[in-house]
């Protein structure tokens, strides 16, 4: 019997040829790849318009092979709303970090969810401000040392990390609110599945979908890439539990049907 080596995995077509500026081991790269794999699988790349945010992923518009807009800090859900309202038949997604979505953009994300805006939000939560050099984020863990909390986050003066998925899940207009992680291949595969579900929800017009993905920031956490993933697995998941916080009935019917 003759055998030959066949390709079982190659780089998704929905990623451009550009080499990313992300640090070695940055999980933005994994998440970009997952979104691109879903776009390839669903064959939606040419019908998709992405909205980049401000943070390390500001250049995401260079990495996805589809039309892309670049929003001001925190405003991506509003910009996505404008695009989706005039192109309801296109797939519109935002890609945001924790500063963008949970600090300056809290108003915009809540109201996009409240309106049941038929967009998909990819929320990359690495508990720190990467692009600007490692400051504290609204999702930084208590005691976390950052450049603007050098003695560790003091909950007395700076409060506690925001659990965005839990909050957004209380909003009626939100159809799918889940939190996943990318700290190992099993969880990465589950994250991809959630992203796929979120895009299918948009495709079927079932409402607002958001996938929060716990991520690593090796450089600003001061860890190796592998240690950083351990931190996600043990410390971040501890504070931000993984799971499905809101799955609308119409969405449940999807997996049944």
């Amino acid at each position, binding site marked *: 019997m003759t*055998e030959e080596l066949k390709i*079982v995995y190659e*780089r998704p077509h929905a990623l451009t040829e550009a*080499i*990313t500026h992300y640090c070695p*081991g940055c999980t933005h*790269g994994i998440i970009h790849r997952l979104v691109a794999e879903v776009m390839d699988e669903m064959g939606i790349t040419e019908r998709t318009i992405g909205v980049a945010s401000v943070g390390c992923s500001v250049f995401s518009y260079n990495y996805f092979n589809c039309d892309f807009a670049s929003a001001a800090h925190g405003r991506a859900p509003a910009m996505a709303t404008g695009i989706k309202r005039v192109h309801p038949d296109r797939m519109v997604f935002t890609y945001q970090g924790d500063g963008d979505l949970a600090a300056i953009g809290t108003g915009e994300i809540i109201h996009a969810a409240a309106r049941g805006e038929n967009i998909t939000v990819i929320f990359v939560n690495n508990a720190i401000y990467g692009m600007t050099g490692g400051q504290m984020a609204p999702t930084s863990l208590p005691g976390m040392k950052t450049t603007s909390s050098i003695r560790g986050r003091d909950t007395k003066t700076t409060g506690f990390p925001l659990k965005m998925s839990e909050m957004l899940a209380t909003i009626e207009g939100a159809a799918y609110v889940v939190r996943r992680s990318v700290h190992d291949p099993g969880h*990465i595969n589950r994250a991809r599945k959630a992203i796929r579900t979120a895009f299918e929800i948009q495709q079927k017009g079932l409402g607002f979908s958001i996938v929060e993905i716990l991520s690593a920031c090796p450089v600003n956490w001061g860890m*190796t890439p592998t240690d950083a993933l351990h931190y996600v697995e043990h410390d971040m998941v501890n504070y931000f539990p993984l799971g499905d916080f809101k799955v609308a009935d119409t969405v449940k019917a999807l997996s049944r049907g």
Partner: protein
Amino acid sequence: MSIFGAPDAPILRTPAPSRAHGDILVDEDRCKGCGLCVAVCPKHVIELSGRFTPRGYHPAALITFSNAQPQERCTGCMLCSTICPDAAITVYRLQPARA
């Protein structure tokens, strides 16, 4: 044990086709030597080479063993490509040739 292989070790494909299950090709323009694939490979057959890529990283590469046992070879399981943040890895698997 260092994750770095011997300096200047050449990249060789995994063992002779008749015993191999899988193979990977690492795009050295993209690989940033983050080491996640090394950590995740269940057969421990990936290492960071002592060489440098054009961008100054130590690229991931399949380790070659001169007398490799089957369980020490790449199986094309795709765990490395699943965790690679730069989509730098193409994974091959030995499959029956279609007529």
